[in-house]
């Protein structure tokens, strides 16, 4: 047996990958189906002199990780639907104050307490638009444990690169399922460490003055530079400002740093896309069933292809626009009333050729569910 093979739940993969990426601080509040993340980190973090703290609620949890990030830690919290709703104000704060952090939402059915122990992918829009105000966000997902490991490391890297919260949008199936995963050796996956200012003590450090490349070097709380951090619109000192020019400039900075890098941030996989005329678009656990169908149909010579999105936000429009240009039909497979399907429709020439295959009853969408929809689209009846 190789040391580096593990057979573990997706939630535990997320823990392994977070630690690999350099996680040193976790704060959270228990909620199914994310709880295993907290339970494993409660064991692991003290062993590496990191911090695990169970807070009084999810609001406090996201606030605590933001505070900890400012002292130089790589930080994470994990939750599910109701807790993710409670985190939205803090998420907006992290966006505005440009605090690197990773927020895991192992999705379950909603609204409200919904279906606590069943699968759902209905927080796709909440991940982008849950917090108030204009903003850009990065949200990622994965459909297998191996991908989940890499995407989790990516999430930490992007949080540092863009100084922003990154949302890992997992689901109950991936979170709870056990599957093989190879843990890479240290150094095998690149890690992005925090960009820190080179300014010496006594030199004026402007915490919110971007460098030429748009990045903002940080200085740890407790270090040699003292500055203000606020959720209000602020100037380069981090001091509140009502100045319209500053407000406009800041808004552009916050959105452009992400949306102008969509090509860098977009992660996706393609299967049998070269000559595909029927294209399935899916993500997370649903992509497993979608791929099952595509592989089987290919064996019968049918020209099906799959685009599996791993970056959901910023929405990789270019991928859909370019790869779906010649599709006869596009079928979006997701476990909600239709969320990503709207984005796909917005980015193709013929939205009337885009169909939805979904399940909203807490039952994991199966290859049979997808086959049934394909038959209807192809005019073969059910």
């Amino acid at each position, binding site marked *: 047996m190789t040391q580096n093979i593990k*057979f573990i739940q997706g939630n535990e993969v997320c823990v392994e990958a977070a630690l690999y990426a350099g996680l040193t601080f976790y704060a959270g509040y228990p909620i199914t189906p994310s709880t295993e993340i907290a339970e494993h980190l409660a064991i692991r973090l003290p062993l590496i002199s990191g911090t695990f703290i169970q807070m009084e609620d999810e609001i406090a949890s996201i606030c605590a990780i933001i505070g900890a990030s400012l002292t130089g830690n790589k930080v994470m919290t994990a939750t599910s639907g109701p807790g993710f709703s409670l985190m939205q104000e803090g998420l907006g704060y992290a966006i505005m104050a440009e605090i690197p952090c990773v927020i895991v939402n192992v999705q379950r059915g909603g609204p409200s307490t919904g279906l606590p122990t069943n699968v759902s992918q209905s927080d796709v829009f909440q991940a982008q638009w849950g917090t108030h105000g204009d903003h850009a966000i990065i949200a990622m997902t994965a459909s297998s444990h191996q991908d989940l490991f890499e995407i989790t490391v990516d999430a930490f890297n992007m949080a540092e690169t863009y100084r922003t919260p990154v949302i890992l949008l997992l689901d109950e199936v991936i979170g709870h399922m056990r599957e*093989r995963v190879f843990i890479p050796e240290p150094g095998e996956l690149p890690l992005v460490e925090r960009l820190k200012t080179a300014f010496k003590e006594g030199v004026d450090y402007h915490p919110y003055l971007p460098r030429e490349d748009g990045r903002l070097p940080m200085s740890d709380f407790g270090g040699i530079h003292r500055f203000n951090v606020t959720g209000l619109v602020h100037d380069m000192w981090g001091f509140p400002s009502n100045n319209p020019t500053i407000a406009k400039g800041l808004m552009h900075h916050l959105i452009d740093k992400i949306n102008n890098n969509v090509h860098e941030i977009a992660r996706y996989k393609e299967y049998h896309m070269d000559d595909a005329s029927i294209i399935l678009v899916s993500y997370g656990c649903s992509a497993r069933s979608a791929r099952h169908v595509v592989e089987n149909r290919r064996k019968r010579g049918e020209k099906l292809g799959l685009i599996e999105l791993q970056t959901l936000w910023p929405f990789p429009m270019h991928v859909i626009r370019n790869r779906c240009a010649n599709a006869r039909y596009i079928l979006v497979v997701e476990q909600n009333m239709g969320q990503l399907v709207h984005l796909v429709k917005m980015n193709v020439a013929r939205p009337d050729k885009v169909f939805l295959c979904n399940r909203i009853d807490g039952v994991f969408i199966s290859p049979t569910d997808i086959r049934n929809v394909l038959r209807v689209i192809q005019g073969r009846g059910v």
Partner: protein
Amino acid sequence: MSRMRFVFSGSGGQGVITAAIILSEAAVLYENLIAVQAQAYGPEARGGATRSDVIIDDQEILFPKVTQPNFLVCLTQEAYHKFSPIVRPGGTILSDTRFVTIHKKSDARQIQLPLYETIMNEIKKPIVLNICMLGAVVALTQIVQQDSILNVLERRIPHEFIEMNKKALDLGIAMGESQRM
């Protein structure tokens, strides 16, 4: 190999989920096979009938849930009532003689073994019922080597309980062997 789809069912506390995990770990960690394991959570997982699905193959497994098992294990009557109808025609249902009374009609091969009784006579500890059951499953399906299961047990179980578990496994294997076709 052809894909094996297992459903392990029983009641909370019988260790059916642990058995499912041990079997899949043995396949993945020691036999270079592919496996996925899933289980029911929430109200379904409290008290009543517990269920864990395992798929083992040498090919990639995409859809991780079992809709029609080739091999169903039932350790309670309730689990048997609930899950025996979903077994594949030609599949196998393994149940415990003490806890389950079987229906006559089924397209599956039905095997009843005195797992509980044997454990109570020989070891006197109901806690290893699941490992005994696993022994029978391994003997009946030959899906993994016994050694692979032993390797997993040695990694997961505290030293002082290893002997008891090995014994339970052997008892299960012996009972399983007696029923192999």
